[in-house]
């Protein structure tokens, strides 16, 4: 019931006095009410629930989280394996030389 999905605002218009927008969900386009995200602009991504945008996705926060995760994956790569423990085909040079830290 609380399902909400990200979509990109294609354009913004007014309908019966309400701020509305056309939203692109990976190719499927539908409209949503934008009254609860009054500052939203064309091209931004929003989380949409049952025809209403309820939050503008914070690009900076998304990047911050993702950077932490990338570090986790890189730390596995530094050990010469992928995260499943399978040896990498092209491990980092210091691992090849047996300098695994």
């Amino acid at each position, binding site marked *: 019931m*609380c399902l909400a999905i990200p979509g990109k605002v294609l354009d913004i218009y007014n309908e019966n006095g309400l701020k509305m927008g056309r939203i692109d969900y990976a190719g499927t386009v539908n409209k949503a009410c934008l009254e609860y995200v009054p500052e939203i602009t064309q091209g931004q991504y929003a989380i949409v*629930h049952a025809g209403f945008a*309820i939050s503008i996705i914070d690009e900076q926060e998304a990047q911050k989280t993702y950077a932490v*995760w990338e570090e*986790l994956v890189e*730390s596995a790569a530094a050990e010469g394996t992928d995260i499943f423990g399978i040896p990498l085909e092209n491990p980092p040079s210091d691992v090849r030389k047996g300098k695994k830290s």
Partner: protein
Amino acid sequence: MKYLEEYRNPQIAKRILDEIKATATKPWVLMEICGGQTHSIVKNGIDQLLPAEIELVHGPGCPVCVTPLEQIDKALEIAAQSEVIFTSFGDMLRVPGSEKDLFMVKSEGGDVRVVYSPLDAVKLARDNPDKKVVFFAVGFETTAPNNAMAVWQAHREGLKNFSILVSHVLVPPAMEALLSSPLNRVNGYLGAGHVCTIMGWEEYRPIAAKYKTPIVVAGFEPVDILEGILMLVRQLEAGEAKVENQYSRVVHRQGNRPARELVERIFEVTNRKWRGIGEIKSSGLALRAAYREHDAELIFNLGEISVEEPADCISGLVLQGLKKPVDCAAFGKTCLPQSPLGATMVSSEGACAAYYAYSRHTFQQKNRASAKKREAVAERDLS
């Protein structure tokens, strides 16, 4: 799709899982509140990938599931009336009342329509002035702003033929009811990301402090959920009980202010009965007096209906995290998604329906084995 695929990355998921395994030293019972998270956990097999120390139990966060049988019967009574266009989200249509469901009412000639947004129901009211258009307003805090906007819009347009049948419930009172139960097993909560998108997470701080239970607001993709679990386990192992926000790309501390303001203007807090659990004080919403001309219960003058739940259904215990769907003798036998006995099988977001959809009834042996493993961990911890 941007903001989806990166949160389904198996490499990152596996790495976080390794971190959880390295961090957990004691047995912890964690509850995800939201049915959307339950669905994602079971679909992705997250519960089966976790180390034996971590047990996930499934919370009451499926509004379709917890809508009382009496409210479904009221919907059926209204929908059967000839002057009514009854509108609802699709997931309510197959929820059985005591005798039938909305699909059956439709097959008998009732004008029952699925809408994508409550504003679509307002449009129907605008386009059909000779009909009474009713929207079945079921949901948590996530959905309340949408229904508030529909009422506000109908009210300012003077659409007296638009009403809602309200069955709104609120998450924090239910979390508190579970924690204050003497039977409580929950050590930490994964908070419902989209409820918090509206409400923020300030109201969870007193709960975390009072019950010494950490709460991590989490998203819905596998990596979100795993990171939320890791944050909970880190807190529990360190003896902390804070509120943290894993879903920071969407959830802000204060939530969505315009949405909260309109909900406050249209609705007031009331006591609500939760299917499978019973009445919880101040756990629901009702229309304020100024908007009661849009209250379907008053318009159709529905009396109190009292209905008994099937005796062999344990959904109340499942919703409280005390039992798992596979612990029920009826699960997958007399209780099926096509013919559900109780709350947690009626919606795809219910724990029983999720277990059934992903064939957990065929893994009962494995579940018993992991229960034994958990017991062994608990014994080891005690000794």
